[in-house]
């Protein structure tokens, strides 16, 4: 709890996205503080360096409007006037609910810029309503006045979906952050959309339950945003997608209608399952203000293991074995290639978990109810993969701290990649037999173009081509960390990546969503008929098109 409150404080200070490395240091501090004042101070100092490093990459981000001149502001939308701001002041209960360019323009910056530091809008107004009723009043007014709106959660999205493109009003859910109820028998949690994922999980931890979603940005992201983007994350393999675990939503439609569909029932076959429209809709049909979600019991026996493997073929064999030997207790199977681990090592200075370097690394987690059974299964599995030389080397976390540290080698990768300036990110689903071929082909492409400078050569934009992903879900993250965003790099990648995926009938966005980044590429994964029906759904809910415009799917 202590680390959590610090983390939250940090967000306010400087938009540190990843709280987890900081968390590791903090928990160390927790151990230190009662013992030795000197060491505790030292540790806090290293914590400060860490966050300073998080800022270091902050070069000025170009306006999206300047960077993408082909996207034009929709002239149907009105421009914000003083009268509008005054009206919002009159309908919102608290003065602190409004951040307006006239008060403090610098405060708007964080709401306008996305975490990847690739997109930057020019919104002049941020509204932070405290209830669904306030959201309703805001949207009704915006709809009547033709004012475009961007709903925003923790702003940790990776496809530019949560920040304005032009001057859309930002509707932040951060002031709606209470847990409404939790039923310990059924495990159903009902909470506001603006609850931070880690807070929800800590709340559930005290009640021996677990939030069925976990991801690297947990210290900042909101559960409402998670549902709106249908986030996948690290434990989808075990607990399934939000389409299955979310039982109901409370949402406000653009005309101000409040849809109160906060069901707490697992089974309910009475008409269209409306909540499914909102899950993964990325704020284009309405604003989710509350969710109810089914939370499983927290496993009291969790084991974490980290392996080094010689080839992708070995990884596939390890995966098959893990499914066979670990079956129902397997809760994560994450793949990281060798270069990702080198980048993490370089940016954090942490010692490698294994003595030698390997081209592939795998992180396995098991969660079960009986520690002895699980250990027996895991041991049998380890003996087999070692004996058959599927795994070259590895380690098993001996305590919780080691487990958390090992997880950093997977969860810390987005920041490690962002360290030099930015990252081109692709989040794709590919059939497992060609899973890693995408990275290899992409590497060839960049080597031939001569754009790769590694971590040393500052004259070239690209650091390297790296891949990691949720092997258990056939979900790969192709990342191209760069020193600066460069059209040459972008033109090389797009539409090359999408065509590559289309040929293999994969998905161009497995879990990050479409947002602004992938709107124009959705046809690589969805046909015209499907897109036509999606447009009809959008028009039904949002006939004036004010909700999160310029994103998701092309409307014409």
């Amino acid at each position, binding site marked *: 709890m202590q680390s959590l409150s610090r983390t939250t404080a940090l967000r306010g200070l400087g938009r540190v996205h990843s709280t987890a490395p900081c968390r590791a240091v903090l928990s160390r501090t927790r151990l230190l503080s009662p013992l030795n004042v000197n060491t505790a101070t030292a540790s806090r100092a290293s914590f400060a360096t860490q966050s300073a490093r998080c800022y270091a990459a902050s070069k000025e981000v170009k306006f999206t409007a300047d960077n993408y001149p082909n996207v034009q502001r929709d002239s149907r939308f009105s421009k914000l006037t003083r009268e509008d701001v005054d009206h919002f002041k009159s309908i919102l209960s608290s003065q602190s609910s409004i951040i307006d360019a006239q008060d403090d323009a610098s405060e708007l910056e964080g709401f306008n810029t996305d975490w990847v530091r690739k997109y930057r809008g020019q919104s002049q107004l941020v509204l932070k309503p405290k209830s669904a009723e306030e959201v309703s009043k805001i949207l009704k007014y915006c709809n009547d006045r033709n004012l475009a709106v961007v709903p925003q959660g923790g702003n940790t999205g990776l496809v530019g979906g949560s920040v304005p493109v032009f001057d859309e009003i930002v509707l932040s859910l951060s002031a709606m952050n209470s847990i409404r109820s939790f039923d310990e028998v059924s495990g159903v949690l009902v909470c506001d959309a603006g609850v931070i994922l880690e807070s929800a999980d800590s709340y559930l931890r005290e009640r021996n339950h677990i939030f069925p979603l976990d991801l690297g940005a947990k210290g900042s992201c909101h559960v409402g945003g998670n549902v709106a983007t249908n986030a996948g994350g690290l434990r989808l393999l075990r607990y399934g997608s939000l389409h299955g675990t979310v039982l109901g939503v409370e949402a406000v439609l653009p005309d101000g209608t409040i849809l109160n569909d906060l069901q707490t029932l697992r089974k309910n076959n009475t008409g269209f399952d409306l909540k499914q429209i909102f899950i993964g809709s990325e704020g284009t049909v309405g604003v989710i203000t509350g969710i109810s979600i089914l939370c499983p019991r927290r496993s009291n026996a969790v084991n974490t293991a980290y392996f080094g493997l010689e080839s992708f073929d070995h990884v596939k064999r390890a995966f098959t074995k893990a499914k066979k030997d670990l079956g129902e207790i397997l809760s994560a199977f994450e793949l990281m290639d060798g270069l990702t681990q080198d980048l993490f090592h370089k940016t954090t200075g942490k010692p490698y*978990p294994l003595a030698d370097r390997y081209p592939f690394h795998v992180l396995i987690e098991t969660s079960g109810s009986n520690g002895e059974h699980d250990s027996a299964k895991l041991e049998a599995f380890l003996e087999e993969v070692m004996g058959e030389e599927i795994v070259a080397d590895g380690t098993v976390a001996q305590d*919780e701290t080691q487990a958390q540290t090992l997880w950093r080698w997977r969860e810390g990768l987005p920041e490690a990649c962002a360290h030099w300036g930015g990252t081109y990110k692709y989040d794709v689903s590919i059939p497992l037999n060609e899973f890693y071929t995408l990275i290899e082909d992409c590497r060839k492409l960049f080597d031939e173009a001569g754009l790769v400078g590694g971590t040393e050569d500052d004259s070239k934009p690209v650091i390297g081509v790296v891949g990691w992903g949720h092997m258990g879900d056939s979900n790969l993250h192709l990342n191209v960390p760069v020193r600066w965003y460069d059209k040459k790099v972008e033109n090389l990648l797009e539409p090359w990546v999408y065509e590559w995926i289309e040929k293999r009938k994969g998905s161009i966005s497995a879990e990050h969503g479409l947002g602004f980044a992938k709107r124009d590429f959705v046809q690589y994964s969805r046909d015209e008929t499907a897109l036509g029906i999606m447009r009809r759904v959008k028009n039904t809910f949002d006939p004036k098109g004010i909700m999160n415009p310029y994103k998701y799917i092309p409307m014409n």
Partner: protein
Amino acid sequence: MSTLRILVPVKRVIDYAVKPRVNKAQTAVEIAGVKHSMNPFDELSVEESVRIREKHTAKTVEDILAISIGPPKAADTLRTAMAMGCDRSIHVEVAEKDEMLEPLQVAKVLKEVVEKEGRNLVILGKQSIDDDSSQTGQMLAGLLGWGQACGASEVVLDGDHLKVTREVDGGTEVVRGKLPMVVTTDLRLNEPRYASLPNIMKAKKKKLEKMKLEEFQVRAENRLKTLKVTEPPPRQGGGKVADVDGLISKLKELGAL
């Protein structure tokens, strides 16, 4: 130069990343179903012993013996110590329901083991994070009549002497002592390694000798009685002040100015 025969005492405690809870009867901390692991300071002792062996010639360290006094599951902790590099271990078994031993009793057991096993260096954590007594190392040195260096942040072996850097208030202190010695470890000493899979497998085959507390000249009665265990009071949330004047008047109100 004498050959080192190292003893590394390790303790199984509630994992330090887990938040401990007081039981309903307020008599102790809840341990059932809670993740346990090796006391972090003891990890440092194990690591340091193994590093001393790795740093010097083959004959410098004869063997590294780990010992734990605790419930049946303390055997897992000893396996971890052996996976990190200890050669063998002794498990002095104490029933789960029994009270935790006090530092003096632990020190007496260790003294007997030191004498029986012919040890000439004991490296142990400066404290365990469950009772935070921070006494066992000092008591053991006293009982043995050996030199001691507590809170080590660096240990250098030099013939039959040890040079130990200690963290003290306001800086560091370097002490030098002749073996045999007791050294207790502090957090800055090293960064413990991950036990590799092959070593975890090998550790299963290393010798783990079981002993009973009754085999020692120690009375298993505690001198201290725990009256009540309670959680610390919850932290009060801070308040916001509007400006510098507000801050000053608040500080005056609190008597800080």
